[in-house]
């Protein structure tokens, strides 16, 4: 059971089954067939049902694999798990999620500080914290990058960059 709870496929299947159920629930509220032909609910209802069936198949498949794995582990050295069965390397996962969080924060503060500052902060975080470069390098990349983006997109191409209350 513990092995099953550690597989990505199991959780992905559950999430997608829930999404499928949501799609079916919503589609049932719309017209299935009208006098003119199929209604707004026709297509989503069918792909929602397909999503539930396939997600449950994924869950069942991962449960079966986990059971086989548990049995094999009891008898002999366990088989090499598939990529989706492995828990991703923690360092890589944390770095990827930290980068994503930094992106979310930079988007959130863009309304206040504008694109240039939020982009410089995002660049600094990636270079200095995630990639562990020297402070000088991080400073140069973040400020240089922000100036380059402003010069290229805002000044040269006259494009609309996200503006904040402050800038």
């Amino acid at each position: 059971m513990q092995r099953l709870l550690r597989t990505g496929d199991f959780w992905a299947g559950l999430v997608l089954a829930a999404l499928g159920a949501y799609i079916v629930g919503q589609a049932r509220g719309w017209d299935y067939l009208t006098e003119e032909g199929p209604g707004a609910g026709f297509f989503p209802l069918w792909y929602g049902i397909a999503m539930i069936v396939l997600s449950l198949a994924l869950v069942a498949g991962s449960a079966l694999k986990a059971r086989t794995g548990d049995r094999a582990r009891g008898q002999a050295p366990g088989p090499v798990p598939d990529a989706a069965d492995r828990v991703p390397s923690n360092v890589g996962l944390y770095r990827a999620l930290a980068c994503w969080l930094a992106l979310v924060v930079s988007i959130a503060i863009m309304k206040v500080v504008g694109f240039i500052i939020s982009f410089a902060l995002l660049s600094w975080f990636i270079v200095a914290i995630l990639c562990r470069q020297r402070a000088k390098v991080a400073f140069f990349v973040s400020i240089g990058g922000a100036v380059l983006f402003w010069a290229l997109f805002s000044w040269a191409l006259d494009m609309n960059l996200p503006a904040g209350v402050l800038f």
Partner: protein
Amino acid sequence: MDIFSGLMHGFAVALTPANLAMCLAGCFLGTIVGVLPGLGPPATIAMLLPLTFRMDPTGAIIMLAGIYYGAKYGGSTTSILLNIPGESASAATCFDGYQMARKGRAGPALGMAAISSFIAGTIGVVILMLVAPPLAKVSLAFSSPEYFGLMCMGLAMVVLLSGHSLVKGLLSMLLGLWIAGMGTDLFSATSRFTFGRAELLGGIDFVVVAIGVFAIGEVMANLEPTEPADMLPVPKGLKNLLPTWEDMKRCRFAFFQGSILGFLVGVLPGAGSTIASFLTYGVEKAVSKHPEEFGHGAIEGVAAPEGANNAETAGALVPLLTLGIPGSGTTAILLAALVLWGFKPGPLFIEESPALFWGLVASMYIGNAMLLLLNLPLVGVFAQLLKMPHYAMYPLILGVSIVGVYSNSSSVFDLGLLALFGLAGYAMRKLDFPTAPMILGLVLGDNMEKALRQSLMMSQGHLGILVSRPISAALLVVAALLLVVPLFRRLNATRLQMIDQDG
């Protein structure tokens, strides 16, 4: 317009200074993208797509196509010098290209990769030019049921060849259909899956999803630590890059079969250039008089896959331009680009937009010549890009992604969606869910639903219309057969072998 006059018209369009500049920019960018491992053409094209909305569409498609086929040229440089494919399509080149470089023949390997790419790329464009117009005429007979069948077959093929698990491929495609269905239903004005947000009434922009899944997801995946590899030196001087006459003679069959097989694989949805290059590598080894040399530095082992992956790009444009059906993530983005610029790829595309079609075809002849010139004398310069620190790339990609999405809609809400789809793209990579079926489902979702509903309107709600017409019935039967392939052990083993090569 016959083929010759169409081509002349195309050269008149492609040879204007602005379009020549766009072609050069696309080829140059494509080579850079190909050289750099971890940054692929779909991410680059998706990121640059919003920036092209202010451009002339002909110039813009010439540039984006240049990135698409240019990346195939650049990918070989990394395969030969680092034993790491710059593009998955260049993976087969590692086998013999790297071995040649280790034996001090990096120059001829790089030169042969460029020459073979040029020959097969050009032959591919010739076949595209000859095949596309008649195919478009045939597909004029298609109505809604046939289109529905065609889209089902295309999606089934992509799902079949996109990953080990058919279930995951199908789920990925259904996710794409769901995202495509968000917004106001054009038949009944019903709001679907908008979560009460006015921003979602118009649906989710394709650009946001494509950039999120490909570009942001790629940055996140690349942040995982990797071991640095040692790069072999590039010989200096054009003379040291040219293969000998004996090398050229040994590769003559590789040029030919790489072009033909590569093109044919390209026409099939889902197969892609990686499969094309491995397939031609296998054929070349099978027919070679010296099969024992393969894997130890046989120059045909460089020529065949490099030719095939370039001919494949021309093949992939056939269903895209004549039927409006893309066969991969990259061609799906190109289709979205054409639609966003106001064009309708399909049977009438060549008739309605001759300047765009023939301009693109002519630009591919010019682009292949440009790439040969770029990749022979300048290969050393491009190889230096491999020394560029990765940490400088990540902010650059994130910045271009943010600017691209914001310039398209001026909406911070879309930037939030960008982050969300970035996380989804990363999760899909980690969990082995293929992204191509989702992107294809997203691009085709609207049209697929429209085709199905129109078909059922034609038949007063009877599903029989889909199987009573011979073409649509045949296409649906093929789609169904493709999806049962994994049930047959032997066929599934072949499928998995092809996917492993793709990986």
